[in-house]
């Protein structure tokens, strides 16, 4: 049952929120041990929230557009009194004293959290294998990764544990796991969704966004979480256009650009490339004008990202020092306490990125690495601007391959290459989403990435809806 169907049934009194939650908790019981989507399932809290929704309906009140809809929250979103670990030992046992803005908005809309989902530690990774609590498994084939870093959220939706989930996307961490698990994943425009209460990884790139099984469900969730928030200084004040009522407008006359550099990037598998061509043909058949377009600077995206994101991370993660929250390893002096706490608390990938960022920002290397990467960011934005003068949306694969085998990418650089198609939109701050479009040679899901200009989520969602419709 889709999120929108559940909400309609609960609002009309046709179904109780309690029965909806019980059904999803039962689904979790059946497969969670095998899939490890969650760091924590909050069943009791969910049932209490469901009863409150049912009481509202009984009293003739409207509990909101997502009434009674179960949702899974990535475990880097703060939830009052409920452990928020970022899948890191350094935050084990920490209970935030406040809710993220998105969590507040979900409650106000009647959605019910069923738990906190697994991720690569501090959202650094593309497979969830960097979680301190062990990897999540792809529900289509448990020998494969679900992607990452929001892998647990993608698994929760793909396995039917919840019709909706939230993730965060710094370099593809919503879109790539959505593609690998065969669900819809959306990274909105930077600033559209408040980051207040999202544990920071790379602040100029991080954005919260939806997972869902359908484009309409993703749009419904987007409408609830997006909008101005005074508690995030990078929140966009512009009014938020509605999306749901525009989804059926079709793509007739829209100009769609196939990004040459991303469709031919290093490591794009032939079966994935075939699906992108099929998607282009489907849009063309639906009346869109599809052409190839060159966005030359995106070939530097990966290099720029793996300097900028670690640099920002090395600064953001300086706060984990054993003083105010989380783990502390005792030592005779404060300096030694810092060193021992951080060394014991962080996993290898987080240490690697902190090291890389510290190096890129250090005296003598700042201009050559971090400074250059920031200038490349300007080039990428300029090239996108030129492309969006001629095209309404841009198309590419989401991930170079279908889901790969657990443990197959032990080399950090090999893992980073997964993000080649998703990174450019983060560097530019533009919206982008992944929509499932068939399967690869191995029978596993393939995602198509739809990118749009800043603030133009509406057109992006319309194109995604057309792709979804073409498969139906």
């Amino acid at each position, binding site marked *: 049952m889709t999120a929108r169907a559940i909400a309609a049934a609960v609002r009309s009194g046709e179904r109780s929120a309690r029965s909806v939650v019980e059904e999803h908790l039962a689904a979790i019981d059946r497969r969670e041990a095998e899939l490890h989507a969650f760091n924590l399932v909050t069943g009791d809290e969910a049932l209490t929230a469901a009863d409150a929704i049912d009481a509202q309906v009984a009293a003739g009140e409207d509990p909101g557009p997502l009434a009674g809809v179960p949702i899974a929250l990535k475990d880097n979103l703060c939830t009052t009194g409920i452990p928020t670990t970022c899948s890191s030992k350094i935050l084990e046992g920490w209970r935030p004293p406040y809710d993220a803005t998105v969590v507040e908005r979900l409650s106000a809309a009647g959605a019910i959290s069923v738990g906190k989902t697994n991720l690569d530690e501090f959202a650094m990774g593309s497979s969830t294998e960097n979680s301190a609590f062990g990897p999540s498994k792809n529900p289509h084939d448990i020998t494969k990764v679900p992607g990452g870093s929001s892998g647990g959220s993608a698994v929760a939706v793909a396995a039917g544990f919840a019709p909706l989930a939230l993730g965060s996307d710094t370099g593809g961490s919503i879109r790539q796991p959505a593609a690998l698990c065969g669900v819809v994943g959306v990274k909105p425009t930077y600033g559209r969704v408040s980051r207040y209460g999202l544990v920071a990884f790379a602040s100029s790139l991080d954005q919260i966004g939806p997972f869902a099984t359908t484009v309409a469900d993703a749009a419904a969730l987007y409408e609830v979480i997006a909008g101005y928030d005074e508690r995030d200084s990078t929140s966009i004040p512009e009014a938020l256009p509605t999306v749901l009522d525009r989804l059926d407008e079709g793509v007739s006359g829209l100009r769609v650009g196939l990004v040459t550099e991303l469709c031919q990037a290093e490591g794009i598998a032939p079966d994935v490339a075939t699906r992108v061509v099929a998607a282009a043909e489907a849009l063309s058949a639906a009346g869109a004008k599809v052409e190839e377009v060159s966005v030359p600077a995106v070939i530097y995206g990966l290099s720029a990202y793996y300097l900028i994101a670690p640099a920002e991370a090395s600064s953001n993660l300086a706060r984990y020092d054993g*003083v105010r929250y989380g783990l502390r390893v005792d030592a005779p*002096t*404060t300096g030694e306490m*810092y060193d021992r706490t951080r*060394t014991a608390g962080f996993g290898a990938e987080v*240490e690697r990125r902190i090291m890389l960022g510290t*190096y890129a920002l250090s005296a003598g290397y700042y201009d050559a690495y971090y400074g250059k990467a920031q200038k490349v960011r*300007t080039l990428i934005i300029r090239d996108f601007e030129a492309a969006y003068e001629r095209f309404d949306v841009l198309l590419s694969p989401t991930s170079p391959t279908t889901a790969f085998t657990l443990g197959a990418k032990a080399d950090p650089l090999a893992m980073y290459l997964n993000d080649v198609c998703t990174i450019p939109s983060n560097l530019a701050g533009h919206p982008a989403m992944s929509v499932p479009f068939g399967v690869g040679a191995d029978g596993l899901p393939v995602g198509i990435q739809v990118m749009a200009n800043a603030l133009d989520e509406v057109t992006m969602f319309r194109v995604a809806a057309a792709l979804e419709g073409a498969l139906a």
Partner: protein
Amino acid sequence: MASLSREEVAHVAKLARLELTDEQIDTFTPQLAAILEHAADVEALDLADVPPTSHPYPLKNVWRPDVPRDAGVRDAVLAAAPATQDGMFLVPSVLGEAP
């Protein structure tokens, strides 16, 4: 530039306040070198006339009235800390450390 030495890695670890073992430094050195080598394409670009972008949108200051209010979370924040005393975070000795 991409040839990163063990000594540089050990120095960066110190700056980042990480206590790495010799074995970890041995692992990280070639890994970080490979990543920096991949970034050599960026390092090689001539971008003298290109302004840097630190943020996707121009950041402007956000103002609000300076009205004192109770955030209501002081006790909860202190309760989450490893050690506190008299409403403050408690840490081990700070004096006597090497600079």
